[in-house]
């Protein structure tokens, strides 16, 4: 027989304003098993917890019911509190009378009644609770970082510097990510490569870091502390050990001049050979052959690169290789791309080569870019005199088919940066920025934007552009409205730059599914808690870094990368992890050994063994299910699939749930 204490929280007025807390206490006092009931202003406060601890000792409580906010908020707090008083933490149940009662109901009588019912359900459940003990599982002291952009690089470096081994998996031939494409960074205007390249080199040389470039995560199994990850190392067609990175092959590849293979790195503004490094500072400095475009792979003829390679590193026979590595923690740093602009026909992006995206502009201004840093129109290679920037192309857009509902966060700042850089180099340029709102929260950010207006005389006009119309004379007619002046504007421009909305890297959904990490409607990874656990995924052992979690700029990304690294290090520093005790359990006397449960277990946690049983005097060997407690995550899929009722879930047992149903339906 349990001795249950019920504690009803006022949560200030959050609960007490709509729920008659005192009445709840009176109503549950005589429920089965209840020996103590009380209320308090803030149950989660130190004083509130002290009250609980005292009651446990004084009334020799064996179970607790806390009627308060959502268990997702404070279940942990109250469990820890019970443990302090020597009570098993799993003897605590929380009745959610705030989020699911006081906050959504207005009628006090109704809300009070419901709170009582919810409390009764929790009491009925606690009556059937049993003490549970967390298991232990070992920790593999190695981390995986998926994505080799600035987020992944910084996370890996921080983990490696703390003394743990880290692997980076990057699907492109080189690490560096989006940042390597940028020219300068705001608000300091230092050169992106100058600050990024040293970090890339450091990654490459760090004894604790292993790089898997041109590789993809193929399969993930296991759980926090013990992930098994299959990594596909795509065939590079170049022997890593022999290649010296001399680049001879790339200059001799016949497709370099005639191939029309658009360079991904230069966003299609330039062509590249079939054997290539994305950019000169690529890490590793080993080219890959793009087999889809390579003449040798398409027709069996050519083979120029193999012939001229001084170190005989080109290897057409190379095969994809899959390696399986064990990790204790995984960081997702898959980054972002910009949205496809096909649905924004009004801006003529597909029609005119002089309408470009901001990333293309980064390449055009970069000294290592396709034009050697000389800003020119792609149509006639003339330097543009009048440039129009259009903000929010696809951001803050309610139309799912066209754009994204969120603010992309970085566009206002990089546009101010672009405007100033252009004005710095070519002061005669006229620059107009059409904006909806200028959003510059951040240290030295608004000052930066103001500088563009005050010092550089960039013309900011409030009003989204309606249409960009290519003109017979080769210019672009921009039609907009100046909302503050109340005028419609038709303005000629030589170049139009679109601040296209950013979106998470399209591959992230597949990765998130493999990791069972949740993602939101916009494909951004979800945090375990939006405010308090922003770099962790709800799935244990998975951490988030950079744009994969949401729009952010470089300094924020780097901070988040560091935060994720600390979380990883905190995990890897442990020798053992406590495992969730709410696991499935097989009653071997009831088990038929039918294998149904194993078919639905997503973790492969169920195996079968022949064991000797003594079933009421009948001794026999039976094939029964066995749950690997370290693998079981407690989803309960097996329990509903089990035909015989042998499988049950600790903490959410069949009887516990049934009794809750009964209590609610009483």
């Amino acid at each position, binding site marked *: 027989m349990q001795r249950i204490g019920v504690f009803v929280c006022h949560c200030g007025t959050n609960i007490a304003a709509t729920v008659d807390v005192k009445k709840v206490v009176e109503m549950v006092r005589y429920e089965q098993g209840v020996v103590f009931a009380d209320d308090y202003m803030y149950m989660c406060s130190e004083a509130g917890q002290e009250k609980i601890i005292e009651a446990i000792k004084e009334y020799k409580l064996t179970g607790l019911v806390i009627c308060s906010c959502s268990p997702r908020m404070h279940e942990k707090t109250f469990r820890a509190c019970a443990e302090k008083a020597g009570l098993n933490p799993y003897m605590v149940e929380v009745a959610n009378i705030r989020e699911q009662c006081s906050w959504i109901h207005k009628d006090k009588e109704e809300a009070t009644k419901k709170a009582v019912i919810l409390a009764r359900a929790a009491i009925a459940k606690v009556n059937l609770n049993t003490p549970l003990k967390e298991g232990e599982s070992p920790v593999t002291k190695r981390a995986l970082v998926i994505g080799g952009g600035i987020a992944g690089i910084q996370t890996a470096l921080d983990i490696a510097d703390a003394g743990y081994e880290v692997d980076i998996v990057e699907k492109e031939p080189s690490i560096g990510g989006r940042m390597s494409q940028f020219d300068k960074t705001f608000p300091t205007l230092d050169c992106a490569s100058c600050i990024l390249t040293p970090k890339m080199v450091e990654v490459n040389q760090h004894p604790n870091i292993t790089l898997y470039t041109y590789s993809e995560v193929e399969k993930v199994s296991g759980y926090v502390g013990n992930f098994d990850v299959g990594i596909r190392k795509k065939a590079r067609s170049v022997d890593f050990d022999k290649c010296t990175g001399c680049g001879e092959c790339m200059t001799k590849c016949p497709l370099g001049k005639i191939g029309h293979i658009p360079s991904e790195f230069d966003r299609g503004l330039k062509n590249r050979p079939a054997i290539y490094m994305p950019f000169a500072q690529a890490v590793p400095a080993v080219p890959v052959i793009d087999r889809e475009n390579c003449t040798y792979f398409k027709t069996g003829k050519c083979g120029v690169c193999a012939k001229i390679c001084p170190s005989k590193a080109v290897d057409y026979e190379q095969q994809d290789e899959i390696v399986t590595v064990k990790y204790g923690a995984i960081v997702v740093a898959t980054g972002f791309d910009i949205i496809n602009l096909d649905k924004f026909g009004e801006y003529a992006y597909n029609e005119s080569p002089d309408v470009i995206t901001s990333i293309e502009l980064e390449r055009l201004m970069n000294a290592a870019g396709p034009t050697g840093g000389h800003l020119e129109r792609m149509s006639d290679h003339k330097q543009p005199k009048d440039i129009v920037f259009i903000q929010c192309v696809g951001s803050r857009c309610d139309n799912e088919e066209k754009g994204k509902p969120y603010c992309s966060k970085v566009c206002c700042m990089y546009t101010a940066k672009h405007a100033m850089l252009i004005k710095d180099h070519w002061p005669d340029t006229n620059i107009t920025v059409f904006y909806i709102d200028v959003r510059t929260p951040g240290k030295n950010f608004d000052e930066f934007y103001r500088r563009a207006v005050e010092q550089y005389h960039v013309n900011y006009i409030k009003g989204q552009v309606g249409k960009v119309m290519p003109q017979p004379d080769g210019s672009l007619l921009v039609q907009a409205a100046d909302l503050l002046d109340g005028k419609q504007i038709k303005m000629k421009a030589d170049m139009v730059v679109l601040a296209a909305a950013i979106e998470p890297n399209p591959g992230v959904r597949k990765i998130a599914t493999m990791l069972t990490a949740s993602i939101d409607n916009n494909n951004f990874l979800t945090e375990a808690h939006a405010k308090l656990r922003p770099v962790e995924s709800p799935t244990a052992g998975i951490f988030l870094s950079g744009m994969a979690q949401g729009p952010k700029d470089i300094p924020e990304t780097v901070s988040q990368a560091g935060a994720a690294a600390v979380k990883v290090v905190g995990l890897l520093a442990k020798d053992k992890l406590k495992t969730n005790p709410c696991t499935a359990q097989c009653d071997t006397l009831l088990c038929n050994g039918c294998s149904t449960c194993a078919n639905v277990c*997503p973790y492969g946690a169920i195996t079968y063994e022949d064991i000797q049983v003594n079933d009421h005097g009948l001794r026999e060997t039976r094939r029964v299910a066995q749950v690997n407690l370290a693998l079981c995550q407690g989803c309960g899929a097996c329990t509903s699939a089990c035909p015989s009722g042998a499988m049950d879930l600790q903490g959410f047992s069949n009887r516990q749930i049934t009794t809750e149903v009964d209590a609610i339906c009483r």
Partner: protein
Amino acid sequence: MPMNEENTEFRPLIVAFCCNWCSYAGADLAGSSRLSYPADVKIIRVPCSGRVNPMFILRAFERGADGVIICGCHPGDCHYSTGNYYARRRMALLFSMLEYIGVENGRTRVEWCSAAEGAKFSKTMNEFCEKIKSLGENVRLGDLRCKN
């Protein structure tokens, strides 16, 4: 409680099974966004919609529930990868069977609701309550017995 006309109105008893990761969190979000729905709905937290054994649903009906709703993560978003897929099949078959034995359609419902869909959660519960109210008290399922 003073007896007035409002109090004689039929108030259904509705049991909602919500998975811990998506829909229970969605219900919490509905709460923190103050998106109300009738107090007739009582939520039972389960780790996953795949944990919901048809026995629980039948049990609720047998004990006097007028409606039972199961909420889980959207297909493809299950915290445990696949639990909601099995739940979907199980519930499709169960609901079809309940219809077959003459129980009114609409007393049971499955809704996929993410942690971000507080508004959807509230809307769903409002709709479901209306539906159950329009169906009235659940006599049939309580009454379907082997012995007379």
